[in-house]
């Protein structure tokens, strides 16, 4: 446990603005995992997600004096991250690259490769757990982002609407459409989890 009561984000922001950069490092420590997770789920590549995460904190640090607390610090970080992710996605569309499958460490793979299991089997096994992630990739960016913010970051509809710059009803529609597409896709892939009949309530 911490020797003293943990400071709020806003307190740490104030201390950083006053010149204490260690306070910002505490903010980084607190938020780097969620920010990395947001970037990873949005763009789907580990290395690039780390770059986005690093860039998010750099930009936040530089722009901190202009942060007036009009939104939560976390929402502000999310906004920077999503903007960077959008830039990344646009860049990728312009210059698509062919690379090793993401999430598969080739070094590890080479050492793991036994005489029995073929490389294809190994890759397939590694990718099995990422079926949901793969299905998410096919969603339009707005739907995917709405689902990520709701499912993994617990934002309210209103917070998502503020981040996405759209009406509340649009957020709900995006969530519904995105989840429906995912449902069809996962059912088509034989994921039985989406067919359960237990009541949501």
């Amino acid at each position, binding site marked *: 446990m911490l020797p003293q009561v943990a400071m709020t984000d806003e307190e740490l922001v104030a201390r950083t603005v006053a010149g204490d950069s260690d306070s910002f490092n505490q903010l980084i420590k607190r938020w780097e995992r969620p920010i990395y997770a947001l970037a990873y789920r949005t763009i789907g590549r580990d290395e690039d997600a780390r770059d986005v995460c690093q860039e998010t904190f750099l930009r936040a640090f530089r722009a901190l004096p202009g942060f007036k607390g009009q939104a939560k610090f976390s929402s502000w970080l999310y906004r920077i991250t999503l903007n960077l992710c959008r830039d990344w996605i646009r860049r990728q569309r312009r210059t698509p690259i062919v690379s090793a499958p993401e*999430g598969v460490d080739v070094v590890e793979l080479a050492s793991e490769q036994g005489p029995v299991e073929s490389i294809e089997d190994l890759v397939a096994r590694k990718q099995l757990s990422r079926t949901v992630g793969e299905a998410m990739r096919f969603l339009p960016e707005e739907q995917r982002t709405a689902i990520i913010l709701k499912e993994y970051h617990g934002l309210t509809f209103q917070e998502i609407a503020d981040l996405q710059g759209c009406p509340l009803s649009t957020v709900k529609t995006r969530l519904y459409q995105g989840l429906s597409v995912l449902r069809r896709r996962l059912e088509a892939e034989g994921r039985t989890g989406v067919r359960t009949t237990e009541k*949501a309530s």
Partner: protein
Amino acid sequence: MTETFTCDDKEQLVAYLYDEVDGITRRRIEEHLRLCDACSAELDGLGGVRRELATWTPPEAALGFRITAAEEPAAVETVARPSRWPHIPAWAQAAAAVLVVAAGLSIANLQIRYGADGLVVTTGWMGTPSADPGASATAAAKTETPDWRPALAALEQSLRQEIHDVHPAAASTPAPASARGGDVSLQRVTDLIEQSERRQKQELALRLVQFGRDLEVQRRTDLVRINQGFGQFEGRAGAEIARQRQMIDYIMRVSAQPPPQ
């Protein structure tokens, strides 16, 4: 709010799914769900998707970013992390890569000659270079091994100058410790070499994986071909046996029959 919930009100259904509805709406929806199998099934399906989504976790990435603000008034900050390639111009990275390759070649005593006897590649210290003119360059390279240090220092100097131009404050950090400049630059080159090695290792591993996969595919193809070959052989042998059997049967039949009177 409407008095009753209708099947096409998907926004409310999603709000119910995420438990962001007021009490009255919740009761209306639940009332509807008791009567409407379609909506009930849809809600179950969406709930199932949410359970699937919960299984999607990002990899355990090594993060540990830190902001270290410089004392300069410009407040240039750096983020300390095991980065792939920090903010170094592309040409500087390329130059460093060439340097690394050159150093590697001189260390490994790699010789590549192209002469009358074709392309010859030798590595290691075992064989002495032959006396033909083509080998003189490699021999010179061998004797010049200690001379790469000034060249490296010069290149390092130009790299540092360029980095200094791009990020004046970043370069100014080690400036006070000019006596230790050599150590710092050596450290940086070592870092670059390490990063390069890591990348090369990855590439090598990727190649190995590809090679292994190709080999496996080839092996399987060969096995299938061999099986097919065996199959054909067996088929042909079987057909031959059957024909011979027929022939024998025929001869037996013919020989058993009494000659026509």
